[in-house]
């Protein structure tokens, strides 16, 4: 399994995984993650741009054997975000999405890709990495805790 930075050519193969991330989150919390139709279409150009942006972290896991065409089974997308100016921390790395195809789970791919993303953010020069998890996504919380992240803030929501 090769984990590497994504290229613009990878994006068409990443988009079906984006659709799965969206559907999964919507199943957990439709009020917070209710998507418009085909949300992955809106990611297309954004992901292509992220793959060319040296301050974004866009990684894919490719299960193809040498000589085979690419077979992407996981991706992670992160960007550098600015904090509001009252805080000591000026900017931080933010992991927006992570997906590992179901057949490839429990093989350590999630942990490897997060560890690599953290290292990429360190090289970019940010002092902190953050990400949001849905309240019901206990597997993700376990994974991120195993990767050295800690819970810092709980988001509370009321529907009106």
């Amino acid at each position, binding site marked *: 399994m090769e984990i590497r930075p994504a290229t613009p050519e990878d994006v068409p193969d990443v988009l079906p995984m984006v659709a799965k991330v969206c559907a999964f989150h919507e199943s957990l919390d439709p009020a917070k993650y209710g998507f418009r139709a085909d*949300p992955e279409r809106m990611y297309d150009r954004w992901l292509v741009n992220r793959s060319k942006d040296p301050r974004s972290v866009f990684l894919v896991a490719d299960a193809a054997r040498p000589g085979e065409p690419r077979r992407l089974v996981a991706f992670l997308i992160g960007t550098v975000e600015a904090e509001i100016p009252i*805080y000591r921390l000026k900017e931080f790395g933010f992991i927006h999405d992570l997906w590992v195809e179901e057949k490839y789970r429990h093989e350590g791919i999630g942990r490897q890709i997060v560890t690599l993303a953290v290292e990429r953010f360190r090289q970019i020069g940010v002092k902190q990495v953050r990400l949001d*998890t849905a309240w019901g996504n206990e597997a993700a*919380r376990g994974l991120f805790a195993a990767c050295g992240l800690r819970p810092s803030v709980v988001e509370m*929501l009321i529907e009106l």
Partner: protein
Amino acid sequence: MGIIVRTGNAADMQVALPLMLERLRERSEIDRAFYGLRPDAARLFRQWIGPVMEDPRHALFVAEHDGQMIGCLAAIVERDLPIFEVDEYAVVRLLWVAPDERGRGVATKLLERAAREYAAMGVRQIRATAAAGRDVEYRVAEKAGFRPAGVTFLRELDSRKPPGNKE
């Protein structure tokens, strides 16, 4: 006389500002990595919040007892990414209650008032944050009808440490 909760005005903002700053400092003590303040945070916060509160949907609510402000809540309306059906929601930016008034339901009343006002404006959701591990903060929000929706995780990076090592 009991506790009165009402929509704040420009004069209230002058009273509320130092109280909000006190709350920012409290949060900074709870989690320095997330909320650590710059030394000039007070000046920057005043600069930031003034223009922000000019938007009519960005609101200040105050709780008073015997004419004294004992709590305040500042909320703004934020837009979400266009991929979501709920494309805007209100966010509670700051909620402060005087230390000797805590545990009397003041924060819950402020949140309930904000929910009523934003519902009347047609806003479909309010989001607020509680520091992880601070059960009192969740309980206050839960009493006002909020539910947990997500958890933000963070990791501080030390550029001197080699790759792969946990902080």
